[in-house]
């Protein structure tokens, strides 16, 4: 057991903190929100220069051979600033799928382009009717001379601007069948693809994507045919760990803002923070933040757990813990700010909404409690 950071990890954290400190004030972020992509391409290139886009990839493919803890530290720093760039979609979700399922040839082709910042990806798995069910896939791919893809994906993170899509599709079996799923690398500009982009409640971008007789070459298949579920599960788990770290970063900022407000806001002739009721509430926020932080660490550590059942169980525990902590901290941050917390002009509400969005990705509290409950012996 060791909770200390290595020298490399300390350096990484410092350089990211410095970069975001310079580039990601609330005002600067507001301007990025209005860019056509909904994020800064200039910063994306800077992430590439700093090596962030290569963090979890093998050195053979131009990556930096980092591990889950490195990604966690980065996501936590991103979370403190509500970073808008498609890191989760490209590096974490799609990157995990590529690393686990891509052939050497596929990895050699795409990963260097990710690392250098040239190519962005989106992970197009969940469908509208599926809600959180991972096997509820109706999108289908039929093999004739090549693959023919038909169907639709919903709330695809950064799916509006991604160059490449990693799409799950049924190659056999029925709805809900754990067998029969396959993953495909799809050029987002292929004929037959319609993308409708929009902002999520936290300002980050996503898309509805439909596929109508999209032709894919045989080599578009990523990993084993009909057996993509284990890969999809691990991608989702990586997403849970990364967003958990972001939520921790968000809670840290909210906690700091709230403490600051309690010290400075005067009512009844004294700082509101002198009311013991509010001191206790702030202490409960701290309790939740620290519980959430522990659970985010658990999620990260468990990404490397070889036993799939043990891994899934612990990551569900973490998703619930972080979800509940995020809810408590963000709701009370607004409450303790009074009216100002309700305004779009003030940062707290933006953190609140990101935490809300993350809670409703990859299974919410109820979904993961349900899974855990099924498992009680």
């Amino acid at each position, binding site marked *: 057991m060791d909770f200390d950071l290595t020298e490399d990890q300390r350096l990484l954290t410092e350089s990211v903190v410095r970069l975001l400190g310079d580039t990601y004030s609330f005002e600067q972020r507001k301007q990025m929100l209005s860019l056509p992509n909904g994020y800064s391409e200039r910063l994306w290139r800077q992430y590439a220069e700093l090596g962030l886009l290569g963090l979890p990839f093998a050195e053979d493919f131009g990556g930096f051979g980092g591990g889950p803890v490195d990604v966690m530290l980065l996501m936590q720093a991103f979370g403190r600033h509500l970073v808008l760039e498609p890191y989760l979609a490209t590096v974490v979700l799609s990157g995990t799928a590529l690393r686990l399922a891509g052939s050497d040839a596929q990895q050699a082709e795409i990963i260097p382009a990710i690392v250098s910042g040239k190519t962005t990806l989106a992970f197009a798995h969940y469908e509208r009717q599926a*809600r959180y069910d991972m096997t509820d896939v109706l999108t289908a791919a039929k093999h004739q001379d090549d693959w023919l893809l038909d169907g639709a994906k919903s709330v695809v993170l950064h799916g509006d601007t991604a160059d490449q899509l990693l799409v799950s599709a049924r190659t056999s079996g029925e709805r809900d069948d754990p067998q029969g799923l396959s993953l495909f690398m799809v050029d987002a500009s292929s004929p037959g693809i319609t993308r409708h982009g929009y902002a999520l*409640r936290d300002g980050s971008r996503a898309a509805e994507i439909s596929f109508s007789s999209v032709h894919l070459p045989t080599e578009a298949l990523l990993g084993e045919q009909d057996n993509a579920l284990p890969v999809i599960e691990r991608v989702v788990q990586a997403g849970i760990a990364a967003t958990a770290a972001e939520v921790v970063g968000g809670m840290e900022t909210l906690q700091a803002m709230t403490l600051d407000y309690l010290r400075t806001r*005067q*009512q009844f002739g004294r700082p509101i923070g002198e009311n013991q009721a509010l001191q206790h509430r702030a202490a409960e926020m701290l309790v939740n933040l620290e519980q959430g932080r522990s659970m985010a660490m658990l999620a990260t550590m468990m990404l490397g757990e070889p036993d799939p059942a043990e891994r899934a169980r612990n990551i569900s525990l973490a998703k619930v813990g972080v979800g509940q902590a995020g809810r408590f901290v963000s709701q009370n941050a607004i409450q303790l700010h*009074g*009216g100002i917390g309700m305004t779009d002009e003030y940062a707290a509400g933006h953190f*609140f*909404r990101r935490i809300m969005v993350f809670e409703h990705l990859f299974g919410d509290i109820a979904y993961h409690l*349900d*899974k855990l409950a099924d498992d009680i012996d």
Partner: protein
Amino acid sequence: MDLQLAPEEVAFRDEVRTFIRDNLPPNTRDRMRLGYKPSKPEIIAWQRILNAKGWATFNWPREYGGPGWSAIQRMIFLEENLSAPAPELLSFNITMLGPVLIQFGTEEQKRRFLPRAANLDDWWCQGFSEPGAGSDLASLRTAAKRDGDHYVVNGQKIWTSTAHHADWCFCLVRTNPQAPKRQEGISFLLIDMKTPGVEVRPIISIDGSHHLNEVFFTDVRVPAENLVGEENKGWSVAKYLLGNERTGIARLGISKAAIRRTKEVAREVRMNGRPLIEDKAFRIRVAQLEVEAKALEIMQLRVVSAFEKSGGKKPDPLSSVLKIKGTELLQNSSELVMDVGGPQAMPVWQQELAALTNEPALAPDWAAQMAPAYLMLRAASIYGGTNEIQKNILNKAVLEL
């Protein structure tokens, strides 16, 4: 003791329910069922329909056009209206300004303002809070100086709901900065929003909507005849106004409508391969909300009938319980609605109602307003006296710790 409504109260409820069913414009009803807020014209139209029926002034005495209902009837009426769901009566006009003018206003003020307030010919807003005066309202600083037969108003209000729709604003202003007690230098003034020097600036809230405003007053000349009650006695007018929010403060009908909606949508969405409505854990969450709704309903009946028995005089500190539990239920029920929607509730869907356009539906119709409702209701525990302040009131008035 009898927890059942009396037969004539049941008959009254049915009469209200039938009237709303038969008279609420279907388009308003359909949009509101999907969680959309009613527009300004929809609010006005519905209040006028109720006013024509004699119900808009549901809490005013008979001699001012009220229907002469008991407190229980008033509560039933509000609940039926909320859970229809129909647009709420504009509370600034009906529950705030109306009773204040009836109690403190001059005959001329009553004649001039009451009928127009009832029919929503004038839209009123409430200018109480200021940047430095929220929970500590008595510290307000907006100044009104007497100049001949006018007051000259300078200062700033904030969080003024719907000021951008408003024709008039009832304001608390400081007329005597030297008063020994802060509460003794405050007056209650009616300000025409079209007066030169009144500037309204929008505040966008976290649900993305424009509901709140800042209102700036720069040398605004207000005729002295617009003073309500005596100069420097505005605090007692304000306290009377805030006390009148009691009936319906819990807005239980909205929570009931939300609970209904969670069940409807839960039939359409899935959890672990089955309709969510079949999921036991989900059903337990709904059951928990139903427990809270029932407790609140009985609580509300108790507070309302005690109020009635006291001759409508004694403010009941237990109304703070209604505020706390009512807003918690509003928040929890809107949270469950959003959770049922799941990922579909997270996008800012630009398409209003697929049913009303010819384009293919981007999202299910129920999805668009789930998150905004949840987000906006975070304010329920802040406005109308924060829930922390309600607990302070309970401590002072009941616990005496």
